[in-house]
């Protein structure tokens, strides 16, 4: 066992461990850049230097690559170390002023603004890309070329790489997003659109679906994963420091017996391309409100920078079109999407934050700002001239001279208006998430003609469904904004809790019962039951051998509709309270 001292703490190390390994075991933080647990250390960036004070030649050594040795005394955060790191960071920042990872570290080490010559590189030359390709993936598609400051990441002879398998491991490990295998891979690599950013940027096949995802963990998109497509690569597995990648994992059906289900499948926006007059999908500067939202988001594809998709310029004039598909009886959705008025008002403000001298216009049908303080908010936007509100519809958006001409009616001002816009933002109708119909059928809950899920009663049971134990929350029920969704979700949660926290369930007494003596076990009742209340009950003999499988009614699920009993030919199912005999008696009695 190797014994050494780190920051005065005695530590033990195994043969082959580096100082970094030992320090991390002691939870001593040492910054790294070119280090990756899965890739053999190289010691290139020197950010991880620590000071050897005794036990070997004193001096600064890279913790990542320096083997733990017996008797070493090490300081990981001495002034000398910090100074060295500070300088490393300043040098790297001078080289790559945009690199976030450097900026963040530099902030921590209080880097000074030295009069250094600045470059505008993206690559901090950590070499992870080259190393992962050669040492982990194998093909060695990339290499270093040139020396000194001219050193760069390249392919041999700067040719398209025939050996690159397009795995993207290089891009994956790159801390500064400086490498794009599509630029040198001889295989045409298609960009995978980042779904969360409305396809405005791209993502890797293994990715964290979106910021703050829960769980905040990466997933592998099998369709695009090189490993699953070709059997090669395996980069993520080898680079994963936690060894968390398991390609043999299969989707598995997890069966949970639950007492309540809350459906919160949310919504999506209707595709506005169906309205050709607005030019969505035809003109890049026509975007949806969701795309706009991503564009102005600091965590979005542009890091919050608002640019015209067509040419990257600042949009000086922007037009927001409301009710794209909403309140369109004839060719859209007849209902009001409810959230657009408010988010558009917000968008105009966000727009003004980004483009101080920009001009925003909003074409609207009615401004519906019902909600606490909502009207104040809209009033503010209008009064402070954040945006010009024009009541009327837009008939056409068409390009002219690099601008988008928005032609519409101003019904209050009178007459037609035409605005030369840099960008047009559409507020498409809110529609339920696709596939909700299928889910609803599985859950045996109702949905309306627009596929919004149906509540059991619009006033008295607004979060319940007709299927006991299934509750609704959020926009799967109808267009609603965040406060409303939260309120509904809270209600659904309370209802669900109310259900599952009781020792016994209260139900209507009118439920179906099975006569096991006569049940044939054909299970046609199972098929007709809208509530999945028919279960299969195994009838055992005294030796525990299954002699028959018969229908059994889940008393909690059954709603007592009686369809099962009608379907049952042997009349082995009857609804309590509406038994056949009772109805026969009724028929008989009423016939007098």
């Amino acid at each position, binding site marked *: 066992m190797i014994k050494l001292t780190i920051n005065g703490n005695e530590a033990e190390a195994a043969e082959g461990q580096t100082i970094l390994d030992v320090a991390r075991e002691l939870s001593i933080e040492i910054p790294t850049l070119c280090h990756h647990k899965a890739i053999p250390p190289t010691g290139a960036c020197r950010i991880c230097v620590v000071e050897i004070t005794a036990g070997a030649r004193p001096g600064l050594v890279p913790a990542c690559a320096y083997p733990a040795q017996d008797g070493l005394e090490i300081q990981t955060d001495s002034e000398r170390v910090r100074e060295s790191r500070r300088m490393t960071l300043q040098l790297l920042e001078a080289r790559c002023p945009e690199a976030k990872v450097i900026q963040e570290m530099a902030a921590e080490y209080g880097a000074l603004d030295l009069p250094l010559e600045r470059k505008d590189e993206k690559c901090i030359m950590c070499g992870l890309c080259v190393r992962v390709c050669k040492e982990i993936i194998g093909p060695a598609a990339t290499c270093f070329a040139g020396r000194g400051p001219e050193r760069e990441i390249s392919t041999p002879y700067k040719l398209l790489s025939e050996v690159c398998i397009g795995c993207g491991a290089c891009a994956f490990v790159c801390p500064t997003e400086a490498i794009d295998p599509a630029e040198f891979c001889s295989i045409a690599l298609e960009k995978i659109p980042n779904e969360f950013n409305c396809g405005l940027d791209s993502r890797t096949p293994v990715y964290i679906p979106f910021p703050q995802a829960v769980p905040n963990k990466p997933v592998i998109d099998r369709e695009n994963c090189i490993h699953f497509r070709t059997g090669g690569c395996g980069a993520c597995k080898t680079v994963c420091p936690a060894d968390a990648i398991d390609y043999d994992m299969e989707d598995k059906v997890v069966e949970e017996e639950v007492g309540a289900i809350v459906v919160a499948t949310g919504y999506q926006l209707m595709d506005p391309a169906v309205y050709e007059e607005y030019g969505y999908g035809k003109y890049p500067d026509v975007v949806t409100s969701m795309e706009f939202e991503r564009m102005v988001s600091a965590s979005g594809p542009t890091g919050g920078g608002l640019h015209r998709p067509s040419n990257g310029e600042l949009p000086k004039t922007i037009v927001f079109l409301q009710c794209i598909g909403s309140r369109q009886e004839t060719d859209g959705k007849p209902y009001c999407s409810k959230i657009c008025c408010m988010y558009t008002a917000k968008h105009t403000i966000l727009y003004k934050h980004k483009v101080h001298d920009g001009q925003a216009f909003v074409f609207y049908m009615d401004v519906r700002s019902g909600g606490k303080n909502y009207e104040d908010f809209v009033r503010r936007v209008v009064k402070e001239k954040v945006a010009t509100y024009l009541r009327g519809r837009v008939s056409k958006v068409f390009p002219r001279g690099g601008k988008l001409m928005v032609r519409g009616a101003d019904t209050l001002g009178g007459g037609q208006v035409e605005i030369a816009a840099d960008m047009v933002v559409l507020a498409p109708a809110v529609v339920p998430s696709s596939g909700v119909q299928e889910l609803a059928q599985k859950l045996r809950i109702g949905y309306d003609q627009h596929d919004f899920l149906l509540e059991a009663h619009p006033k008295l049971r607004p979060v319940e469904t007709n299927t006991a134990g299934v509750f609704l929350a959020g926009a799967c029920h109808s267009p609603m904004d965040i406060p409303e969704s939260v309120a509904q979700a809270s209600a659904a949660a309370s209802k669900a809790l109310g259900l599952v926290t009781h020792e016994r369930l209260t139900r209507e007494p009118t439920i179906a019962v099975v006569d096991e003596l006569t049940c044939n076990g054909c*299970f*046609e009742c199972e*098929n007709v039951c809208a509530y999945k209340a028919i279960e299969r009950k195994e009838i055992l003999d005294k030796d525990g051998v299954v002699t028959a499988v018969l229908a059994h009614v889940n008393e909690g699920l059954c709603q007592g509709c009686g369809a099962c009993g009608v379907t049952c*030919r042997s*009349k082995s199912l009857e609804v309590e309270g509406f038994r056949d005999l009772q109805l*026969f008696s009724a028929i008989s009695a009423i016939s007098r």
Partner: protein
Amino acid sequence: MKADGPATDALRKEAADLLSRGDVGVVIGYGRQDDADLAAPVFARNAEDADRLVFDDHCLGNLAVYLPRSEIRAMGRAGVVVKGCDLMAVNVLLRENVIKREDVVLIGTHCAGVGEPQLEKCSTCDVHSPEGCDVVVGEPVDQPKVDEEQRYKAAAEIDAMSVEERWDFWRSQFDKCIRCYACRQVCPLCYCKRCIVEKNIPQWVATSAHLRGSIAWNVVRAFHLTGRCVGCGECERVCPVGIPLGAINQKMSRHVGDSYGFHSGLSADQEAPFTVWSPDDSDEGIL
């Protein structure tokens, strides 16, 4: 088709093999007794028994009727000789969880038609060669083109009558009914442990052999087979008083065929028309 033809030889060999291997506990097939017109069922329990099996054009019955019976189940896995028409009934039994596919060995027979004279159903048969059996014996038979209208001829003739005529017709037919339930008992799909007729709380169907009871019985029988009946015709064949039950079955088969595109017995994983629905189902005739 002759009783000592190749189909019979192949059948006996197959049955003997199955029985001697212990693959099945019984082979349900047809046998000939003297010169009777009807080949009666044979329940071969061992290889020697298998020699009693025959297949010829006297093999009218639908042996699927025996599959649900506890006496047969007690014998273990059952081999059963099925014509194409009989197989359709097996499919329904499978669909309705009455039997499990692994519990039966289906010995199909190519069949050009049975009966002397040939049964009406055989002239519109489109399953001369059963599909999905474990083994099929006999010489393959050409599948003639089937006239769909012909298939529903008996029903069509009655449909052509006025309501009043039909009433008179059926009234006279049902008057004959002696409620022997041969139609039920011979039907492979009437496997209920307790027939609705036998339920007396409430008494759904009057057991008395008067017109009311017989109408009720025949309506129930027909309705409970709607969407299920495979048209094997056994009910009508065994009716001791000659009620044309086949016409009723045809009528209802045609209804589910025309309305829901459903033809029972074609496979074991169909969804019976009365267990599913479509929002697009016709509303015709609904106020």
